[in-house]
């Protein structure tokens, strides 16, 4: 009965850990994908900036730390693009007396996290009218991932403590049942290691079985959820499929993490419960 409680507690902790890991991995993967899409800063230039000045600005932008590539887009090109984008509606632009669009620099960043720094630097240039970048959306995703990591971390920590406690109690029951035998073992000169051995093995087995069950549950249920979502929300999933972390990609790591943690919980639980009883 107590053994069942121990195994379930290890399984529960690891399942929650597994899902937190999967969510974090997925949100990270999404954020990473978003970074790739949003890692550009668009700089609008003032109309009265002359060519020489524009050229110099381009060179200076390249020198800013975190800038990977700089490309220039003339206002005429921008207008052409807009016309193309508007298609049949392009007639609305015909009455324009002058091109209202600015010359722009499109700056590719090495890393989206540098966008703020780059923005600050660019802002100080003369001739810059405005800057647009997608930092916020990415920032939100990263914040969500961090939040899940933090909350998940705390939940896992608390559950870990609980399962160590449950396992140590399970072992304690066995130890109490056999405490006369343990005492006798110590009187006849059995070493502590010899006395601990069977109980440690019991703890390890409880942790091991718990983690095996957790691995099975996680891999089946995650696969099921992915299939369900892709059936139900096919269109949405098509767009995101590149960023979804499949179970096959993480199964090996999951097995290693789960077995290590499961067995670790078992060993720790046994050690705690035995410490008190090896005092004769």
């Amino acid at each position, binding site marked *: 009965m107590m053994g069942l409680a121990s195994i379930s507690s290890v399984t529960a902790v690891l399942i929650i850990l597994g899902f937190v890991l999967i969510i974090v991995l997925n949100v990270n993967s999404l954020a990473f994908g978003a970074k790739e899409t949003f890692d550009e800063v668009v700089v609008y230039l003032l109309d009265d900036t002359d060519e020489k000045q524009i050229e110099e600005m381009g060179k200076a932008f390249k020198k800013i730390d975190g800038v990977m590539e700089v490309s220039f887009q003339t206002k005429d090109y921008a207008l052409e693009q807009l016309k193309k984008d508007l298609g049949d509606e392009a007639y609305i632009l015909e009455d324009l007396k002058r091109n209202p669009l600015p010359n722009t620099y499109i700056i590719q960043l090495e890393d989206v996290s540098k966008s703020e720094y780059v923005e600050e630097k660019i802002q100080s240039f003369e001739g810059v009218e405005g800057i647009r970048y997608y930092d916020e959306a990415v920032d939100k995703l990263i914040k969500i991932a961090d939040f899940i990591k933090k909350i998940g971390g705390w939940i896992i920590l608390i559950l870990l403590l609980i399962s160590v406690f449950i396992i140590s109690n399970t072992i304690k029951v066995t130890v109490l049942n056999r405490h006369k035998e343990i005492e*006798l*073992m110590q009187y*006849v000169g*059995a070493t502590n290691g*010899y006395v601990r051995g069977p109980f440690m093995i019991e703890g390890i087995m409880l942790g091991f079985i718990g983690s095996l069950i957790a691995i099975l549950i996680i891999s089946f249920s995650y696969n099921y959820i992915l299939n369900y979502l892709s059936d139900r929300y096919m269109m949405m999933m098509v767009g995101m499929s590149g960023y979804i972390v499949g179970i096959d990609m993480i199964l090996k790591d999951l097995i290693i993490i789960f077995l290590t943690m499961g067995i670790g919980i078992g060993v720790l639980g046994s050690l705690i419960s035995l410490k008190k009883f090896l005092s004769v």
Partner: protein
Amino acid sequence: MIEFCNVSKVYKKEFTAVKDINLKIQDGEFLFIVGKSGAGKSTLIKLLLREINPSDGVITYSGQNITKIKKRNVAKYRRKMGFVFQDYRLLPKLTVYENVAFAMEMICCDSKTIRREVPLVLSMVGLSDKAKYYPDELSGGEQQRVAIARAVINKPEAIIADEPTGNLDAETSKEIIKILTEINKRGTTVIMATHDMNIVNSCQKRIVELKRGVIIRDIKTRGCIDESKEN
């Protein structure tokens, strides 16, 4: 040789269990530790087993200061001794044979040696025919004989017996003492704590008497204490 040098043990709340104990026990000696309940007999035995450490003083066993033995080495130290308890402490789910073999298994003896030694020791305590019995099928005296067999199976240098006759009638007690005397004759030191003066007086062995944690008498040989004068 076992030697207690100015040994004191103070438990919590300033309760002094034994005080300034000076005692030398030679190899091969048979020694009774006597005294009423609370006199400090059990504390003395616990100190010798290295179950507790003295608050003051030094205990040496063959020249080794046992108070300095590290926890992980206590097991090895205890292998030099065999223990017999008042309540026998046999494992109820094991047969007589298995209870004796248990002590050998715990120090990792090979099964061949176990098969050879256990019947010899059982025959020494007169229980060859009860090897397959379980403890609850035996009388108190028989159970204590199994416990003695278990204590001597690993050929210890000393046997420490804490009230081994405490739960037995006079006749059975005599049998136990006879076995312990036999073991002693083979060269094993025997230290026995008891409050049964009849046994002590009938044995004519060295007697160390404790009262309120202090040795009040150490009668080296052919000792005899007149109980009537005690009260």
